[in-house]
């Protein structure tokens, strides 16, 4: 990947994510998150009034970081990353991560990426921004 070949507006590859009961359990085990809204559906519905098991916000943050890191591969490094969770998502939903180039600084070799996770209705559940520095 060469910075001279990149253009503002270029799209990053999209990826669909459909967490399963098992993958959501493994994620919460890996990050040591015991919050019951992620694995106890009866509790999530009755005590916290969710329509189902909640897909973790930081997991969506991971998908945003993956979108940037998978696109960048070994052509540089991630220098800054920010995200927020705007809207809840639930087990059974398919969410899609994607992004585009919004700025290029050829002198500093910095590329700024706008990132998003959207739900089936096209609503952004988690927006993000990443800045990467290209080596090539």
């Amino acid at each position, binding site marked *: 990947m060469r910075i001279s070949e990149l253009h503002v507006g270029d799209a990053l590859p999209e990826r669909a994510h459909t967490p399963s009961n098992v993958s959501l359990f493994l994620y919460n085990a890996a990050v040591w998150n015991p919050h019951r809204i992620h694995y*106890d559906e009866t509790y999530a519905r009755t005590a916290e009034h969710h329509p189902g098991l909640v897909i973790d916000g930081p997991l969506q*943050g991971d998908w945003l970081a993956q979108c940037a*890191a998978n696109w960048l591969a070994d052509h540089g490094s991630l220098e800054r990353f920010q995200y927020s969770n705007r809207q809840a998502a639930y087990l059974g939903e398919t969410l899609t991560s994607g992004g585009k180039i919004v700025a290029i600084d050829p002198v500093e070799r910095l590329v700024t990426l706008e990132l998003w996770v959207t739900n089936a209705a096209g609503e952004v559940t988690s927006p993000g921004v990443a800045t990467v520095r290209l080596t090539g």
Partner: protein
Amino acid sequence: MTGLLTEAHRAWIGHETPAVEVEVSRRDIIKYAIATEQVREIYLQGDEAPLMFIFNLFGALRPVSALREDGLPSGTSAGPKLPLQRVMAGGVALSIHRPIRPGDRLTGVNRITDMYEKSGRQGPLIFTERELRVTDAAGESVLVEKQTSIAR
């Protein structure tokens, strides 16, 4: 300003939690990489941690008997009791100085960097900004995470 934050609240600005030390294992990186369905071999082999591996890496480890009804440990975020109780996560911003690798011995220190009020459309909001500084065994910065929580 809505006048909810007192001097006693604002005295928490600058408060630091005790340093937490974490040893990063290849196996923990691989578990995280599998759970998040990473595709790059560098992560799946555990040679380098995906960026968001940092999430809750320095979180409290409490016995089962100390967990609340909702499963979470109580009182793990240092800070004053606020006059607004419903707390939402705001944004997270990371400055990354180098990737995390197996064998790293990391130290995390959390600090309250700011507290302020705003008037929202549905009433007052209190913002608390925290900064997690992660350094390695040589004392070099690995990353800085800034996190905002919003009480309403």
